[in-house]
């Protein structure tokens, strides 16, 4: 009896450990005092965090990533919300077509999208500019906003908008006073995902960040290729903390909007 319950629990435990192990290793190593990547570390300290916060080679890409992600959040949230509102009003066949088109950057393999973006942007001389990063990441982030806002919209009783109109609110007033407040959780969740999508993105960055717009993931990639330095573990841990915090916020927002 006890064995019958312990075996599945053990299997699940192993799977969870397997999934979390890389994160655990990276986090532990980031607090290492050793000058090379080794596990388990001989002693613990914050020296690699100090290195990160004092080295412009790390800080500059961090600022690039944050600025790009911030611009992507603004653009993708605006465009994605409008797209979701428009799609909801289309006839069914066109709705499926438009949704497919918008989601295509997620469906097509990332490398294919990256190559396409690289060719297109180099034609316009955009490669290596922060604008290129913002535009490319916006394409990748818009689907998340559209999906999230569409889910919020589908949960709204269409009679609420009719009620607002019947009570004398113009279509504009109805949007600001009824529709937007009701889809706000979906919009915020979409914005968080847009941020994470941009902040974590590597493949497109490899192709188009050039030397003028090196983002943090790109810098980490270069670092791994040319040297092995535990600073990368510290950077990774900070990135994990940021991403987990944002995901947690998104989860809370979703729960609140369902309540």
């Amino acid at each position, binding site marked *: 009896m006890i064995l019958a319950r312990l075996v599945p629990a053990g299997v699940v435990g192993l799977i969870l450990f397997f999934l979390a192990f890389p994160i655990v290793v990276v986090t532990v190593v980031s607090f290492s005092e050793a000058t090379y990547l080794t596990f388990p570390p001989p002693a613990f300290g914050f020296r690699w965090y100090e290195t990160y916060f004092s080295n412009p080679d790390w800080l500059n890409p961090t600022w690039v990533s944050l600025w790009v992600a911030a611009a992507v959040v603004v653009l993708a949230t605006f465009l994605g919300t409008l797209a979701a509102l428009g799609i909801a009003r289309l006839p069914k066949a066109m709705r499926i077509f438009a949704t497919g088109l918008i989601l295509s950057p997620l469906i097509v393999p990332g490398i294919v999208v990256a190559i396409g973006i690289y060719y297109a942007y180099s034609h316009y001389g955009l490669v290596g500019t922060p604008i290129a990063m913002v535009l490319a990441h916006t394409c990748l982030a818009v689907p998340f906003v559209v999906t999230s806002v569409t889910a919020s919209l589908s949960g709204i*009783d269409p*009679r*609420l908008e*009719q*009620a*607002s*109109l*019947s*009570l*004398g*609110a*113009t*279509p504009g*007033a*109805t949007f600001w*006073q*009824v529709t937007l*407040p*009701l889809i706000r959780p979906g919009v915020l969740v979409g914005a968080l995902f847009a941020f994470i999508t941009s902040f974590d993105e590597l493949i497109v960055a490899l192709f188009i960040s050039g030397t003028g717009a090196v983002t943090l993931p790109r810098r980490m990639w270069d670092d791994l290729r040319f040297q092995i330095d535990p600073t990368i573990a510290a950077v990774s841990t900070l990135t994990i903390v940021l991403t987990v915090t944002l995901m947690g916020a998104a989860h809370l927002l979703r729960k609140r909007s369902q309540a």
Partner: protein
Amino acid sequence: MGEAGMNDAGRGASVTLADLEKRYDRVNAVDGVSLDILSGEFLTLLGPSGSGKTSTLMMIAGFETPTAGDIAIDGTSVVAMPPYRRNIGMVFQNYALFPHLTVDENIGFPLKQRGVPKAERAKLVAEALELVHLPGYGERYPRQLSGGQQQRVAVARAVVFKPRLLLMDEPLGALDKQLRENLQLEMRRLHSDLGITFIYVTHDQEEALTMSDRIAVMNDGKVAQVGSPEDLYDRPSDRFVAGFIGESNFLPAIVRGMEDDVVIAECDGALIRAMCPGRPASGDKVTLTTRPERLRFADSAWNATTPQNRLSVTVTEAVFAGERCRYMLQAGDGTSMVLKEPSSAAIRRRAIGERAEISWSVADTILV
């Protein structure tokens, strides 16, 4: 409030529907509806689902555009006017209260759109809450209210800006029977307090009979009959109305002659007299209708009215239902009928298989 009976003609809008049509793809949801709704009237659009009653209401509200025909409010066509300019109150089926706003903010919403200053708004909202017997509930959110309370808030919100016309789309449909009956009476009171025109949509014939000044029975996108509850119940114009409002017996008969506006028809060998507005020809095959509670056993103590129609029947089913007994009867030609008799310990119950004579008044017999 309390100014009951002030059915001042000026406070309610009159509504005229002229040959109104709404076509979806190839289906005519509303197929040529013409109706004059009087100022201050409580008019109910009654019909089964798909009869076009809700589509008609949505066109009056402005959420649907008519395919053809016209809608005039106080003599002015509103077909081209967007819903937010029509100044019509509307209560929706599931109330459609704004979940992100408090009760006060919900009721204040139409006032805010009209630029009513805050202090004035608060006063009007408080008055509206009092009108629907919910003072002190202003700070709550809709989800903290029961279904009946939400319904009252929806009514308060729809009348707070003093519209001259109130539309209601099955507003009591989601509530349990007891509450529904209380709110029906409250709607009547509200109607006489406000003195404005009500257009009410329901599929519940009892609700329609209880509340309305007039009922328009709709079927297949058309108005089958318009009239007071008594008109529709006592003098249904066709078989659909007779069957939809209350319970009816239908007797196949052949016309044998006329006496003034009373038709004499042969039914299962007996001559039955029926009220008939038209002039059917001798030999026409027709259907007569009667209400089960207006039939009596000919030898019963309840039987007092004259002149009488009479028919011989066999009892096929007998059910005691407390306040009354319900009998299924069969005439010689196979026609089934229902007879409802008020129950009394002094009256003998009929047994199944028993032969009996039934009788009923000519005024309660209608040719449809």
